[in-house]
């Protein structure tokens, strides 16, 4: 089973301005990838989803990509 990226790198807070990091957890349609695929733990998946949604609001990340 894959290890959580954030736990292994000791990342406690996920910054919504860190676009390069957030993009790693989006699929080609800019949807948030499920933790089953990425291996992110439940706690960090919640924080990651919040960060991605904030980044979308401030237009750092797209809501959808066609």
């Amino acid at each position, binding site marked *: 089973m894959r290890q959580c990226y954030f736990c292994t790198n000791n990342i406690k807070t996920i910054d919504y301005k860190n676009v390069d990091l957030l993009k790693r957890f989006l699929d080609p349609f800019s949807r948030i990838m499920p933790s089953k695929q990425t291996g992110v733990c439940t706690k960090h998946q919640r924080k990651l989803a919040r960060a991605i949604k904030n980044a*979308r609001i401030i237009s750092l990340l797209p809501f959808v990509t066609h």
Partner: protein
Amino acid sequence: MEKNSKIYEISYLLSPLIPEDKLNEEISILRELIEKNHGLIINEEPAKIHRLAYTIKKSNMGSFDSAYLGWLKIMAAPEDFLEIKKEFEKNQKLVRIIIMESIQEKASKKLSGDKMIKKRKVLSSPVESGPKEEIKTEEVDKKLEEIIGT
């Protein structure tokens, strides 16, 4: 500063219609707004032109694909912050803002690193093993003569 004051982070998108030479004026207006409402700016990133991930349409400004993106970290009491938020929302030059509660960055990280180095230095210093006995040259000569004599 009041005891119950909190740290907030405000990210904003400023209209790209503002010319670059007038950008500082607009940011200083935002700063004044915070200071007027008893807020304290802790940290900030100056606004830079940023290509947006999607087109934003505003009825009074039209639509655009880029904007000036910047953020401010402020310390203010919750009741004062409500006023700041209202003032920000009224500002016509701001395309979009996002506000969230933040935490203060730990300045102790660097200190702990220094401590580690100091600790290592202490460990690497030579270990003293009690008071050293003074060796007299006469005694050494006598012992050498004994060895040579035998």
